[in-house]
């Protein structure tokens, strides 16, 4: 379970201090999905980096499975906006970065993940040789390589064309249902939040505060986009963002 309690985060020091997040509280049950939506630059990514252990809040607490988050943990995987692939490493090395850093040889799971995502044939290629969609899939493979219990995603599908974006959203949904990890998604795309988030937190302009909570419990099927609850959630999110 992820618990963020009265989270306040500031960047910089002295006169240059900027408050990015103020008094944000939420909970996410094991295997659940949460989307954070808000205007660009409001502090969504800051919350995600704090959840991953890369940033410390100046006040408030974050706990994952009852333990305070003080540094990156193996069971918490982060997918970055542009996949964060290292151009000088091959697809195989990028996908298994966490394992290679900890000195472990990638096991059967690594090959299985690459095969599942259709990347095994290009395992020796370098990122500049891949299409944008493939790069995002390598980012997903990297996140899944350690079999995480929490998956954090920072606008993972930004700047992709509509069709590729929907395909990868479908892939996220399938993987989430198969592997039962908890998922926190940061996005500014209303439809993406409505398709993947069981609970959706709408954030204010900087500093990010919770403006509204939209429950979206029917998430889980690939044809959810065609249903009435999806349309209702999209309308509710639009209204909340425009307020």
């Amino acid at each position, binding site marked *: 379970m992820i618990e963020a309690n009265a989270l306040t985060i500031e960047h910089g020091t002295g006169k240059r201090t900027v408050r990015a997040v103020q008094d944000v509280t939420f909970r996410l049950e094991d295997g659940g999905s949460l989307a954070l939506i808000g205007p660009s630059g409001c502090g969504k990514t800051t919350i995600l980096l704090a959840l*991953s252990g890369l940033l410390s809040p100046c006040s408030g607490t974050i706990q994952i499975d009852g333990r305070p988050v003080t540094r990156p943990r193996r069971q918490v995987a982060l997918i970055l906006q542009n996949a964060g692939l290292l151009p*000088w490493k091959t697809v195989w090395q990028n996908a298994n970065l966490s394992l290679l*850093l900890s000195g472990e040889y990638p096991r059967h799971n690594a090959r299985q993940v690459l095969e599942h995502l259709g990347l095994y044939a290009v395992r020796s290629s370098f990122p500049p*040789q891949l299409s944008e969609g493939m790069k995002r899939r390598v980012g997903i493979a*990297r996140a899944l390589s350690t079999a995480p219990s929490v998956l954090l995603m920072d606008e993972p599908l930004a700047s992709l064309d509509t069709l590729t974006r929907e395909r990868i959203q479908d892939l996220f949904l399938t993987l989430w249902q198969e592997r039962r990890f908890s998922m926190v998604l940061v996005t500014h795309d209303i439809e993406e939040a409505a398709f993947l988030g069981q609970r959706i937190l709408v954030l204010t302009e900087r500093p990010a505060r919770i403006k509204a909570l939209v429950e979206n419990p029917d998430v889980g099927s690939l044809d959810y986009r065609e249903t009435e609850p999806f349309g209702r959630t999209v309308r509710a999110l639009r209204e909340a963002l425009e307020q």
Partner: protein
Amino acid sequence: MKRVLTYVLSLVILLFLWEMAALLVNGINHTILLPGPFNAFSQMVKNAAELWAAFLTSTWRLILAMLIALAAAVPLGLFIGRNTAFDRLVSPMIYITYPIPQVALILFLFILFGTGSAAKVAMIAPVLFFQILVSARGAAKNIEEEHLTSVLSAGATPRQVYWHVILPASLPEILTSVRVTIGLGITFLYIAETQAGQSSGLGAFINKYMLFRRDRAFAGIAAMAILGLVLYIGVDLIERLLCRWKYVKRPPTGIRLRWKRRSDR
């Protein structure tokens, strides 16, 4: 194959221009002031043993100076580039010491290291060191934050961040600066090798023959140019080996910009 042919064509044009310049200069002065490439290369063959020994001496001096400069400048430059507080402390020292002409210190270096190879290497290495240091520092400053976040979130230690991100990301820029320093290194090599009384190497060879056997001196100059070319090719090969991702075939974008002539508009 096309690449090799272009290289050969380029060399042929250069030799042709040299020959033309020699004909022009010697024609105007009615004496052989500037030996042409054929004279120089025939002297190269006739003095092969002496020239080869000088070439080897100069080559190892320059390579040793480059290795010393790289070993000192790369770790320091990368560390300065990523550490703002240390950068503020060290940068003024760099800016003050960087413009000092090494030639001004040559007598001091001879006193310190003697007139052998050590003084020559000690004169060349600092010149290369500053060039590489400034490049490594700049490259480390411009690392994409996303790459750092990526490895940090995967649990990398500070040492792993340097090894897996900062060093490989900076490598192309460092190698470009190494290429730039080859020309500079050869210039300083020449100066260092001509300054001591009993000297060796290509600089001394050129100096020895410049007044009375200019064709031999130009054979030495050609050998110095060949030394530069060999080092350039060496750095290119090292870059192809260490920066393989830069030389891979990328997916076609379908965009091919055409340069329009004024008359086409």
